[in-house]
């Protein structure tokens, strides 16, 4: 009986240790984040509005410590999911567990859609079905205001084309016969990196290269971001 008791105590300690590691390993901002059921556009997510004085004090402390982009106060929380709907005033994400969470959008919300380049996007560009990450402020009532929205690209924005140079016009263009059998021509600019620098003089017809350029979605001529010259001894 004594042996069983010792075993039980050990199991209990192990269980409590496992629980502690799970809680400590999770990001703090997710602990208090409560997801709402399905919302209509424009509605704000609501979280448990009844808080103890201690919880309120904690929330105020977090608020003071986490002031960041914009003038929005509140605890910072982060979500990732699929855009269910969006309009000028709100964004609703469907999370991995199937639940939904809705954020208010304001004039200060920074929306980034990498496929559109570096320029900031507007809410109408948030297309349902796209993956997105949202950095938001959560006020005392649980309402979420999006501070930053990132639409996660479904495909890489760039392409690597490996092939053999068939034509090279320094500072102007480069044409390669690629390993996929196609011929590609790229514009070269002063911003095009030619690497490694000690092989730059080997860039000529017949050289084996990798050209890095934006992914071709229009069929137009692309500007090379970089040209990597492989050693002549390689195939």
């Amino acid at each position: 009986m004594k042996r069983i008791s010792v075993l039980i105590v050990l199991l209990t300690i192990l269980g409590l240790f496992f629980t502690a590691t799970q809680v400590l390993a999770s990001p703090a901002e997710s602990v208090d984040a409560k997801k709402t059921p399905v919302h209509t556009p424009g509605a704000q997510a609501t979280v448990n509005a009844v808080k103890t004085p201690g919880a309120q004090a904690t929330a105020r402390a977090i608020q003071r410590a986490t002031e960041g982009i914009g003038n929005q106060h509140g605890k910072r929380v982060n979500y990732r999911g699929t855009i269910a709907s969006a309009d000028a005033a709100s964004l609703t994400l469907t999370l991995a567990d199937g639940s939904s969470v809705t954020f208010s959008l304001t004039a200060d919300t920074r929306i980034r859609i990498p496929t559109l380049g570096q320029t900031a996007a507007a809410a109408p560009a948030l297309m349902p079905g796209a993956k997105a990450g949202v950095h938001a402020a959560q006020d005392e009532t649980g309402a979420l205001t999006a501070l930053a929205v990132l639409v996660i690209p479904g495909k890489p924005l760039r392409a690597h084309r490996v092939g053999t140079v068939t034509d090279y016009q320094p500072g102007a263009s480069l044409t390669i016969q690629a390993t996929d059998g196609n011929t590609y021509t790229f514009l070269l600019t002063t911003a095009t990196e030619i690497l490694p620098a000690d092989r730059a003089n080997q860039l000529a017809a017949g050289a084996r290269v990798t050209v890095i350029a934006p992914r071709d979605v229009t069929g137009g001529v692309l500007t090379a971001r970089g040209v990597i010259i492989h050693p002549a001894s390689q195939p």
Partner: protein
Amino acid sequence: MRFWKIILPLILLAACAPVPAGVTPSPTPIELTNGALWLRIISPADEAILAAPQVEVRGEAPAGTVLSINNEILIVPAEEEFAVTLPLEEGPNAIEIFASDIEGTEITLILVVTYQP
């Protein structure tokens, strides 16, 4: 018997303790393979939350692998290790990692990290 009445609920409580929901970093390293090409990302973890406005992307790949990581272009040296530091904006940031070898074999990976001052 009284002992069991006390201990058993504690065991069940510990076993059933909920893991908080939300954005949780994925485990690292992230390892991907395509034919002879392989890529191991040691850091950062996908969905990592960082307090600094930059992140160091560290990993391993075969020597000679061409990498483009956002706007940075690298050629993996003989040591098969690489590292590059990228600036971050507050909020979620995409890190697009594209690896290719001389045969045209490719591996791509998009990580999302959040800069939260």
